[in-house]
């Protein structure tokens, strides 16, 4: 796609220009070509974030997703393109990251307002003073939750013995982000301040897991004694 802009001397092909330049042209010259390219380039990103967030929040119908896509673009253009005009492209991918956050907030705001309307804003339910809600099976204080807390403490103490060196703090964080939070090695590598590739994170996880497993599997003192006592314990092969 070819178009003229500025004084009509410069010829630009929109699909090949940088995001920074595209954003600048959309907010400044407002040429139709620039806006078509902007919508084309960000459609997949915006639609993906909306589809996932809306699915989780309960309504990912085509109509809702398309309405929210349009709403996101309008949000980006709100206040006379303030966001586009004032955005500082400090590093590659910054604008795409920003669009993701704006999109997620548009979806959340939409579902929040829908939910409020459904429940009827301002209607409060009166609870008895001695009302005690039934505890869920995994609520804080339940046997399951206490068992998990004990397991976390046990693993943390083993982990402390496995970790040495200057990267101890970062590696501990990586371990918990993977096993407790459930982030993949790739997601962890993408996080700010980790400073590792996906392979690097995988390698750290593999090493820590191996060391930890060996420590956790070590026989307790009494078991070792039993093994050495002979007939009452296991007989070595």
């Amino acid at each position, binding site marked *: 796609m070819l178009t003229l802009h500025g004084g009509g001397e410069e010829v630009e092909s929109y699909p090949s220009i940088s995001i920074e330049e595209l954003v600048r042209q959309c907010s400044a010259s407002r040429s139709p070509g620039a806006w078509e390219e902007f919508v084309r380039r960000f459609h997949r990103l915006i*639609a993906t974030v909306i589809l996932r967030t809306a699915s989780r929040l309960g309504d990912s119908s085509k109509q809702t997703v398309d309405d929210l896509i349009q709403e996101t673009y309008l949000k980006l253009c709100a206040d006379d393109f303030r966001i586009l005009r004032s955005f500082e492209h400090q590093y590659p991918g910054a604008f795409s990251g920003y669009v*993701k956050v704006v999109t997620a907030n548009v979806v959340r705001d939409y579902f929040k307002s829908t939910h409020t309307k459904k429940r009827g804003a301002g209607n409060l339910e009166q609870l008895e003073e001695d009302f005690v809600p039934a505890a869920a099976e995994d609520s804080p204080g339940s046997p399951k939750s206490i068992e998990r807390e004990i397991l976390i403490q046990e693993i943390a103490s083993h982990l402390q013995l496995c970790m040495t060196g200057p990267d101890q*703090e970062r590696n501990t*964080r990586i371990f918990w982000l993977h096993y407790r939070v459930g982030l993949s090695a790739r997601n962890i590598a993408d*996080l*700010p301040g980790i400073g590792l590739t996906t392979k690097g994170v995988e390698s750290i996880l593999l090493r820590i897991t191996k060391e930890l497993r060996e420590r956790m599997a070590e026989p307790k003192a009494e078991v070792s004694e039993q093994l050495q006592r002979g007939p009452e314990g*296991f007989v070595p092969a």
Partner: protein
Amino acid sequence: MKLHLNNKEIDELLQSNTGDGPVKSANPEHLEDVRRHLKDCATCQMMMRAHEHAIESLALLKPTSPGTKGPICPPDYIWLDIAAGILDRDAENDLSHAAQCDYCGSLLRQAKEDFADELTSEEETIIANLPSSTTAWQGRLAAKLQDIQAPLEVLPSPKDRSPSFVRSLLAPWRLAVAAAIIGLILLGLRDHRRTADLITRNQQATAEIQQLKQSVFQQNTQIAELTAESKRSSTLAPAPEPQPTSHVQIASLVLDPGLTRGIASLKRLTIPAGTNFAKITLRLPENPDGVVREDLVTAEGQKKWSQELTPPESEKKTNSLSLLLPVYLLIPNDYQIILGRQTSDGFERFATYTFRVTR
């Protein structure tokens, strides 16, 4: 006869069993030997079971529910910014928090899942079939976005204008457009006035907030002075409880740690009219070393007050910690005092106290 399996062999067996990662054994015959030995050796079977159990334990670390927000959790929007890589400050502390907090951890995971660049084939299909994926839909939207506050068309210069041009300027449709433009400008001016008004109000509110902050600072200083005075008096003479004077009225309460089961066993702090401060003595489950943080949190989870201090030796001896709170903080409600001790990662909760305030 083969000796017992070593950790390397167990590792190879586990990897070959689960298919989790490449098997690094260069010799498949050796792995077969290892398997044969395992079949006949009870000790190695037990070792193998212990390793499998350790792996199963790691899988139990994931929470089954999203957890509840605590007083030290950062605001929720942080996790979107971190997941998108646009946080404008150091994220290390936040990530360390998420790694230890089920509530924040689940928000971070959700955000990472929502922002992932790769699409599943199902997502690809759904998005490809959206009406918004068509060129026509996108073209219409692009035109709509372009028209938002489109710049006004530039008129030709006066020398190019002819009488017919002037007449054409007076054509009814042009007048109508001009009226519409003037209307828009007037609306814009009205909006501008409203904006100016809002800015003034915002400045007034900011000034009021500053005044309130100043007032809170003064009251905190007063509390700190009274706390220090109380601690000094307890160091010099352990027995006397602060007595109400003609100037300062103090209500007191002693609390044991732990969650309260049921309303009946909830400790109550009744604050009579004219009382200035509440002295709350916390019985400690253990003596913490170093700095301690006290957080006063309402039943709704709103943090009302917080302080960090090193417990004085006199209180350590009695396994207790006293705090003085201004009663204006304690409107009738249920409260928790959360004690945290300092660790390398921040503050770790080690005791909770629950009570109800009545007037």
